[in-house]
């Protein structure tokens, strides 16, 4: 029998949603520079647990990224190089 695994997770500070913290920031699908913070190198949308967004803003970001992809401002997928 294996002894119960000891949880050795380093505690990380709970991130605060950037858009909540700074109300001046707007989510816009045309603003590629901001959206780029929320996608991986491969172009996938970063999960909330990593980006630290609140549910509302994550939703907005997701919508914005999808719009930007549609009009080719962002890539659907980035192939390795």
């Amino acid at each position, binding site marked *: 029998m294996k002894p119960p695994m000891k949880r050795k997770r380093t505690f990380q500070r709970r991130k605060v949603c950037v858009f909540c913290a700074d109300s001046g920031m707007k989510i816009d699908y045309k603003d590629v520079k*901001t959206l780029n913070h929320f996608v991986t190198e491969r172009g996938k949308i970063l999960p909330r647990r990593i980006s630290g967004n609140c549910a509302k803003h994550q939703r907005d970001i997701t919508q914005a990224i999808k719009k930007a992809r549609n009009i*080719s401002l962002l890539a659907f997928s980035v192939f390795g190089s």
Partner: protein
Amino acid sequence: MRRYETIFIANPDLSEEDQNALQEKVRSIVASFKGEFVKLEDWGLRKLSYPIRKNSRGRYFLVDYLAEAPALVRELERTLRLNDGVLKFLTVKTSARVTSEQILALKAASLAAKTLPLEERPAAPEPTPAPVEAAKTEAGGEEK
């Protein structure tokens, strides 16, 4: 009235005349449907994130306008779809209700923008959707 913006990507191989004709056409459609034209931005040639009809670059145009009836949007999208020089387009409603005072403010702002050089353009007064420039300057400040 509702405020919409349409981005369309023109084929970069189009001649300057065709580009202008395209812009003119967009303007005339907005006018003929009693829409309120706010602005047409030319973003110039940009690299596309993925090839569209074998083009790796495209010329982006952003049309900002107000419309009373969705017929305007339908007609605009129809013409863009029929035009071979347009690679892709996307229409987004930016504001569901714009009052007549806001329209006047918008008009004043666009007039001021015409007389002022691009850099010194003041932020548009109060219209509900924030100007694009404001959002753009406040990028950054976040890491993954």
